[in-house]
Structure formats: structure tokens, C-alpha cells
């Protein structure tokens, strides 16, 4: 009956998977940020971060540099020629926008636009200073061709403002291209827009070889050329390629290992097929449920999920081992199942609890891994429970020689007794633990989550330096009831940042108020100009006297200047194409108010506390350090999960107590000791404790307790079947997680390594804690 229901479920499962595979053509997600925690408490913060990331996602910037400009141009031409054949993948972003056009909007508001330095000069410089500037501009043959006629900007204030805006980037137009230099080399800057999604693996496989081809073409044109590229797609492609490789290594490695193990143990193809069936249904079930829940699946989930193969086979193996045991030959398969069910239920529950540790973290990627693994186990388990009794009939499997080896090894395995040798062992163990723990440091660095190839990081750093680009991970969020309030608050923040620029803590900032000052600031600027420069006895009148013009001319010029004093609003600016590079800074209406981002250029790690301090105490200003935040989340959860692990031991104890009573400690102790020993070994190996070690200990609890349960279900010392099940289970776990520990993602590596060491430890310690048959008081058979 249940078997038929399960067949129906598996049928649905297959249809769903077939639909996903053939209909939806699903591909795993390679978004490198999927592992980062979501900021749930503050949607504005999350939105701001997304804005910063999204503005970069579809961009690719390539710098082609050589010793001189002509060579750089030649190399850039060669590079472009390759890409020009594929306008469907990459589109060159036209760098030569019309500079006069972006100025047109500001021209009509120029009396309101002042740099902070010009404002200070207006307050402090004498009249003669301004007269000199105006006259120099009048007579110089070179100063004429600037930003319009002399009388549009007689004191050069608007010119200074435009110059300040131009200096927000070191990139300059040159011969119809964009240029940047570092004193040593000259680079052609080529911005591209990706026409295909950066996180699509198909897109990555098309774009990456194309870029490599273009790079080679550039090298061929100019052998000593330097090509620096940066873009989200490069990271995504590197992460994707690495994860795909690991996925197949772990997947095929553990499958192969399990087939060999099954063959050696059971000498039957049927047993292999059965275990593969439970693993297969487990994996498909995991995939199906994950897709229903998340509507996507991350490639790293699959890498981690590949280690599931080792875990999912436990139940099938346990059943098969017991089927070949001599004392069960009288039972039919359903009776056997009934006898095994309590242990099977306990092992499933404890392991799922172990995986739930991952689900308790705020990292969406880890949650997905936890759900995937737990679902995989549940599906494999249900397959064993519903189908194996039907598929495995009495006497279809014979015990192999392995069972005898197991019996012998178990008999000779030392038992821990309360005597002199036992105390010595305990003493040495304590010394070992204390020493190992004392060497254990901690590490909560964001680099645990992703570890891109060094050349990509080098390129990114180089490009960031050359272009003086702002960092996407650290910035300020400014909030206010209206856009005017936001701009005013930005200006207050900038007043605090200006001294930091002078001290070279940062090289600059990007803010919308750089382009559109608050109405208050615009009014203050134009009043200051009016009072200082345009009054009846001011510099304008003095200039008139020097060039032989009269009071009428002064009045006409003043009126001409004042005609450009209407206030500029963010809305007006954001509508123009010129605002494109800055639009992501303006969050607009969010959360019942308005918000914006102030981004920083030329940031160094050491200056973070100073910058955090600069933002404190200002209304509506919030310092965001995504890197620091993630590190602190990692640290917080490392501590939090350590407690969860500890409490889980009590929970599992409670879960096991009704069945094992006074022997419960014997079931649990090997795992606890193995966990401690693992930590001590990690400490001695110079590893730093991180969240992922702790999460692995959580899973180790789930897996290790299984071994205790298996052995204590079969308390007889001669019963090798349980020991065989433990051995098979441990070997396949070692295989899966051992392969996971080869992962290049530090988090998965730490997880795999901990599981590898821990599982070996539990495996070897577990038989030491069997019941001591010389103490019959503890020997009690359970039904």
C-alpha cells in the first residue's frame, strides 16, 4: 500500500524533473552574492546594496595599456576587432557623449553652482582678487574658448564647478577614446555592456573565450601590451567553472567509491542497484523540492549536495547489512523493517537536525544547502522504508567474507573500561584537547565565502586604482522625509568628509548633491555671489570701470547672470542622459521617505573606522560596511552556532533516552569526543576556527550518533552486522566529505575537512563505548 503511494510520489517527482530539464531547461545559478546574508531588518539598506551591485552587474571594463598612446590604441583596435563580430554578446558603450550637451542643463542654473573652495574664496578673498580673475579671463587669448561667452561666467565660478565635476574621474576623452594613465603606462579605457545575463552559464561560456581571444589579438598587435579586465561576469564564470569541476569530482568520486564498497561487501549487482536507487530518488527529490521552494538552485548547493551521496546511502546499506545478518534470516522483509525502524527513524532525525544547523543561518545559500541535503536524506530514507522490503526478499543476499573480517576486528577492538589503562588514555586525551584548543584561533573573513582566482583580484585592484572607482561594499546611506532633506543631509556629511580628502584618507566621494545641491545650498550660493560680486561697488562694477563700460552695462550683465539662478532639482537632472553614471546613487522614494547613497573613492582598509566615525551623529546618515557586516555576521553565527551545537547534544540525548536509557551516554559520547578531538587537531594544524567548522560539527553530531545507534541496536559483541554498517557508512561519508575538502571554496573546504577528520574519529571511537559485557548490569536488551 505505502509502496504504491511512494511509487506515485516518485512518479510525480520524475515528471517534475523531466519538466524542469526539458521544458524549463534549468541551469544552476552562479550568482556569487547568493551566499551573502540578506539584510531583512532594513529593506532600504538591502535595496541600496542591490543598487550598487546591479549597477555593475552587466558591465565589463577593459583597459588596454602600453608604454605610449599610439601602441595602446593599436592594441585596443585589435581587441575591439575581435569583439565587433559579436554585438549580440558585448556592446561597446560609446564613450564620446557630447560634453556640451550635459553642460546645457547646468548652464541654465550656473549661478547656483559653487564648489566648496569657491564658496570659501567668496567669503575670504578681497575685491581685487575677483577683478584680476575677470580681467585675466577677458584678456587671455587662451581662456576664451571655454564654456560659453565671457559674460556668462566672468569670474570663472561655473568653470571651477565643472572642473570639479570632471575631476570625479581621472578618465579623459582623448582622440575619440577614453584615456587613463598612471605615469608609467597609458591605457585605453573601454566600457562594455553585456547583452546576455552575467550569471547565465551559457553566456559565460560564450563571453569568456571571446575575451581571451580578444586579449590574444591585442598581444599579437602589441606584444608588451597589458590588458586589465574587470566585471561581474568574470567572477561568476570563474566561480561557475570551479564549482562545476568540483561537482563532477565529488559526484563521480563518491558514486564510484560507493559502487566499489557495495561490490566488496555484498558481491551483488542488485545491492548496488538498490542503493543507487535510494540515492537517485534522494537527489532528484532534493532538487525538485528545492526548485519548488527557491525557484532556482545555486551551483554551490549542488557541490555541497554531492556530499549527500555519502549520507543518503546509509539507510539502504543498513537495511542490506541486516538482511544478510544470520539472526534475521527467519524474518521476512517487513518484519525486518519493523525491527529496524526505531533505529532508522532516530538516525534520520538526528542527521536532519544536523543539517538544520545550516538552515538557522541568515545566508540564503546555506539555507538552500540545508534544505537540499535534508530533503535528499528524507527521500532516500522513504525509498528504503517503502520499497526495500519488497525489493529485497529473504535470502536474496548472502553474507560475504567482509562480515567475518568485521566480526574479528570488532572483537579485538579495545573497550574503554574504568581501570588504569583507561584512565591513562583519558588523561592523555585531556592533555591533547587542552593543547589543541589553546592553539585554535578564529577567523570570520568574508573571503571564506568566495575565493576568486588571484589574477581576477589583481586586475580588480589595479582597475580600481587606475579609475579611482568607488567601492561597492562601503558607503553611506542618507535618508530624509523629502529629497531636499536628503540633499541637505548629504551636504552636512560632505562637510565632514572634505577634511578626510585633504588628509588623503579618501580621494573623493560621489553624491547626487555634487551635481544637484540642495535648494538651500543653491540659494545660499547665489545670494553669496550676488552680494560679493554683483553689488553696486563690487568687483563687477570695478571691472566695468577698467574696460570703460558704464553703470548700464553693469546692470545688464547682472541681469544676464541672474537669469540663470532658478533652482535645479534632482528630478530635472535624473531625466538627462548625463545623469546615467550617477542614477544608482539616488534611491528615490523608499520606505515612506527619500534615500540616497554617498559612495567613496580611494578607500583603504585602515580608514574604515575614521569613515564610520565621520557618519556618526548625523541625522539620517548611516554608514554601511557590507564586508564588515558579513564578517561580523560570520563571527556572530560562529558563536551562536557553537551554542546550538552544544544544546543539540542535550536535545539528542533527550531524543535517545526513551530508547537507550542508561546507555544513552555511550551512544553520544563518541561523537562528542570526536568533535573535541577534531577541533584540537584543527588547532594543532594551525587552522582558525570559523563558522563552517562549527556547522560541520553540527552535522557530525547527526552522522556520528547514527554509528552509536547502529552499534547499540546490536549490543552483542559478536554481532558484526552493525559494525559493517558503520564501516560502510563511515567510508562513504569520508569519501564524500573528503572530496569536498578539496574544494577551492574555503567554506566548503573547512566543512569537508571537519567532517573528514570527525568521521574517522567517531568511527574509531564508537566501538570503545560499546557495553562492557563484564558489567551485565548495563546489559539490557530492548525490544
Amino acid at each position, binding site marked *: 500500500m505505502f509502496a504504491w503511494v511512494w511509487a506515485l510520489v516518485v512518479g510525480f517527482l520524475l515528471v517534475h524533473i523531466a519538466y524542469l530539464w526539458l521544458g524549463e531547461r534549468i541551469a544552476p545559478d552562479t550568482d556569487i552574492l547568493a551566499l551573502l546574508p540578506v539584510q531583512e531588518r532594513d529593506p532600504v539598506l538591502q535595496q541600496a546594496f542591490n543598487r550598487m551591485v546591479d549597477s555593475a552587474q552587466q558591465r565589463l571594463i577593459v583597459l588596454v595599456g602600453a608604454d605610449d*598612446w599610439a601602441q595602446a590604441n593599436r592594441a585596443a583596435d585589435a581587441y575591439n576587432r575581435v569583439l565587433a563580430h559579436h554585438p549580440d554578446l558585448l556592446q561597446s558603450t560609446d564613450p*564620446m557623449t*557630447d*560634453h*556640451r550637451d550635459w*553642460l546645457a542643463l547646468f548652464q541654465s542654473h550656473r549661478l547656483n553652482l559653487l564648489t566648496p573652495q569657491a564658496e570659501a574664496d567668496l567669503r575670504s578673498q578681497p575685491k581685487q582678487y575677483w577683478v*584680476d*580673475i575677470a*580681467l*585675466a579671463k*577677458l*584678456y*587671455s*587669448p*587662451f*581662456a*576664451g*574658448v*571655454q*564654456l*560659453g*561667452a*565671457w*559674460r*556668462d561666467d566672468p569670474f570663472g565660478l561655473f*568653470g571651477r564647478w*565643472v*572642473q570639479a*565635476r*570632471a*575631476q570625479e574621474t*581621472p578618465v*579623459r*576623452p*582623448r*582622440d575619440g577614446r577614453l*584615456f587613463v*594613465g598612471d*605615469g608609467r603606462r*597609458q591605457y585605453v579605457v573601454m566600457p562594455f555592456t553585456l547583452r546576455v545575463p552575467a550569471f547565465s552559464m551559457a553566456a559565460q561560456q560564450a563571453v569568456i573565450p571571446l575575451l581571451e581571444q580578444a586579449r590574444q589579438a591585442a598581444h599579437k598587435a602589441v606584444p608588451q601590451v597589458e590588458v586589465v579586465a574587470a566585471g561581474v561576469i568574470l567572477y561568476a564564470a570563474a566561480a561557475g567553472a570551479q564549482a562545476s569541476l568540483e561537482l563532477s569530482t565529488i559526484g563521480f568520486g563518491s558514486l564510484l567509491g560507493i559502487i566499489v564498497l557495495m561490490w566488496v561487501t555484498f558481491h551483488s549487482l542488485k545491492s548496488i542497484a538498490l542503493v543507487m536507487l535510494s540515492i537517485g530518488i534522494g537527489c532528484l527529490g532534493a532538487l525538485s523540492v528545492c526548485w519548488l521552494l527557491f525557484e532556482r538552485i545555486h551551483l554551490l548547493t549542488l557541490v555541497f549536495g554531492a556530499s549527500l551521496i555519502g549520507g543518503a546511502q546509509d539507510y539502504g546499506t543498513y537495511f542490506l547489512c541486516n538482511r544478510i545478518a544470520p539472526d534475521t534470516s527467519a524474518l521476512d522483509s517487513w518484519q525486518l523493517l519493523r525491527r529496524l525502524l526505531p533505529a532508522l527513524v532516530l538516525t534520520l532525525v538526528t542527521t536532519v537536525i544536523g543539517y538544520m544547523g545550516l538552515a538557522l543561518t541568515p545566508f540564503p545559500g546555506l539555507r538552500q544547502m540545508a534544505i537540499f541535503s535534508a530533503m535528499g536524506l528524507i527521500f532516500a530514507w522513504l525509498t528504503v522504508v517503502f520499497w526495500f522490503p519488497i525489493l529485497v526478499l529473504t535470502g536474496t543476499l548472502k553474507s560475504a567474507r567482509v562480515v567475518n573480517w568485521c566480526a574479528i576486528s570488532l572483537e579485538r577492538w579495545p573497550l574503554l573500561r574504568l581501570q588504569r589503562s583507561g584512565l591513562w588514555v583519558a588523561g592523555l586525551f585531556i592533555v591533547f584537547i587542552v593543547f589543541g584548543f589553546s592553539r585554535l584561533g578564529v577567523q570570520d573573513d568574508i573571503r571564506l565565502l568566495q575565493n576568486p582566482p588571484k589574477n581576477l583580484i589583481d586586475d580588480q585592484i589595479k582597475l580600481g586604482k587606475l579609475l579611482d572607482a568607488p567601492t561597492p561594499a562601503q558607503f553611506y546611506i542618507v535618508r530624509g522625509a523629502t529629497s531636499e532633506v536628503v540633499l541637505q543631509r548629504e551636504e552636512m556629511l560632505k562637510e565632514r568628509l572634505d577634511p578626510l580628502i585633504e588628509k588623503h584618507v579618501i580621494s573623493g566621494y560621489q553624491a547626487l548633491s555634487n551635481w544637484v545641491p540642495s535648494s538651500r545650498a543653491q540659494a545660499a550660493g547665489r545670494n553669496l555671489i550676488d552680494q560679493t560680486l554683483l553689488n553696486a561697488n563690487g568687483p563687477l562694477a570695478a571691472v566695468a570701470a*577698467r*574696460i*570703460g*563700460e558704464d553703470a548700464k*552695462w553693469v546692470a*545688464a*550683465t547682472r541681469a*544676464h547672470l541672474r537669469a540663470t539662478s532658478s533652482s535645479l532639482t534632482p528630478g530635472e537632472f535624473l531625466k538627462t542622459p548625463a545623469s546615467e553614471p550617477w542614477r544608482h546613487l539616488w534611491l528615490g522614494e523608499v520606505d515612506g521617505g527619500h534615500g540616497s547613497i554617498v559612495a567613496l573613492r580611494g578607500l583603504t582598509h585602515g580608514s574604515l573606522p575614521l569613515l564610520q566615525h565621520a557618519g556618526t551623529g548625523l541625522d539620517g546618515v548611516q554608514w554601511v560596511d557590507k564586508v564588515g557586516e558579513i564578517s561580523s555576521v560570520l563571527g556572530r553565527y560562529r558563536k551562536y552556532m557553537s551554542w546550538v551545537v552544544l544544546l543539540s547534544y542535550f536535545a539528542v540525548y533527550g531524543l535517545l533516552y526513551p530508547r537507550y536509557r542508561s546507555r544513552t551516554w555511550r551512544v553520544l559520547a563518541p561523537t562528542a569526543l570526536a568533535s573535541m578531538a577534531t577541533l584540537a587537531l584543527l588547532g594543532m594544524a594551525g587552522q582558525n576556527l570559523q563558522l563552517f567548522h562549527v556547522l560541520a560539527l553540527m552535522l557530525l553530531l547527526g552522522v556520528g550518533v547514527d554509528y552509536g545507534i547502529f552499534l547499540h541496536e546490536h549490543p552483542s559483541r559478536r554481532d558484526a552486522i552493525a559494525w559493517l554498517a558503520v564501516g560502510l557508512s563511515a567510508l562513504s561519508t569520508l569519501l564524500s566529505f573528503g572530496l569536498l575538502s578539496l574544494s577551492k571554496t574555503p567554506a566548503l573546504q573547512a566543512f569537508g575537512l571537519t567532517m573528514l577528520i570527525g568521521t574517522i574519529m567517531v568511527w574509531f571511537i564508537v566501538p570503545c563505548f560499546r557495553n562492557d559485557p563484564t558489567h551485565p548490569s548495563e546489559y539490557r536488551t530492548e525490544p
Partner: protein
Amino acid sequence: MKFWFMACSIVFASMPLWAAAPVAEIQSMLAKPKVLCGRFDQRKQLAGLKKPLASNGRFCVVADKGVLWRTLEPFPNTVRLTRDEIVQLQGDRVAMRLDAKQEPAVRMINGVLFALLAGDLGQIEKLFAVDSTIHDNSWRVTLKPHEPFLAKAISSIALDGGAYVKNITISEASGDRTSIVFSEIQTGAAAMSVDEAALF
């Protein structure tokens, strides 16, 4: 951006000091001394001003070094253009300094200058349409910008001369107009005064 336009204008202004035509003939008519100094008289007619503004001063062009442009009347103002920077001096005060490291236009100007000295007019032709006429020993050239963004600043530049440039007129899109007349040309090492040499 301002500097870019300004830098361009310097190129255009200083360019005719050596040569100004793509035509090899004009090129061959020009003397190419190592040092060239002289007097300039400038008249500017600006939008919104009734009277033209007259000024005069001295200029020097030194091969491989750069240009010195000194306005002496009605008040002193000096612009020095060397390989790595453009400096504007108002009296002794540095009113403005443009570094080639920050503004590649500075290098471009020098590139154009040195290209001109070498007789390579490719750079000029890239930016301007050149229209030239020759009469006996004198020539006349009109330059009109190719690039729309330059055309919005400059409508045309006209120059004429013989062995040296004699006149230059810059007509800006805004209606402002600058005419410069060169005279008292001297060449050779002695052409430059001691204080001028000190300014380089």
C-alpha cells in the same frame, strides 16, 4: 572638461606660430627656428561689450621645450606651456596649474606642438578641416572643427603668414572673437631675454 577646451584653444592659438596647413607647400614656406620670439597685439571683441579689448605682450617658442605667452599691457599675465604642465602666472602668483599626469590634454597639446615642429600635420587634420590658399610668398588657412563638440565652442580659426605666422583670428561659437597680430619676430638663441629664459 573646461581644461580640455581650454587646452585645445591653446593648441589652436600656438599652432600657427610654426605652421598651419596640411599642405606641404605651406610647410616648406615656414622657417623652423629653434627659438622664436616676438611681439603680439591682441584684440578681443566680446559679446555684451561695446569696445574691443586691446592687449599686447611678448611670446617665445622654443623647440623641444614649449611656449611662453606674456601679456604685458594692460596688466601682466603669463602662460607657460611645457611638456608636463601648463602654468598660468598672475604676477608671481600661480593662478592655475595643469598637470599632464591628470589632464592628458596637456600631453596632447605637446604632441601636436612637436608634431608641427616635425612637419607632421596629421594631428591637426584629425581635428579640423583645413582650407588653404597661397599667394606668392604668403599663405592663408582656415580651420573648421570636425567634431561637433568642438564646433560648439569654436566656429573657425583663420591664420595667415609667410615664413612666420602674421595673423590669427579665433571665432568662437558664442560670438566672442579674438584677433592676434604678430610682429618684431626674432630668432636664434639671442631672441629670448634673460627673464624670459628664467621663466622656462
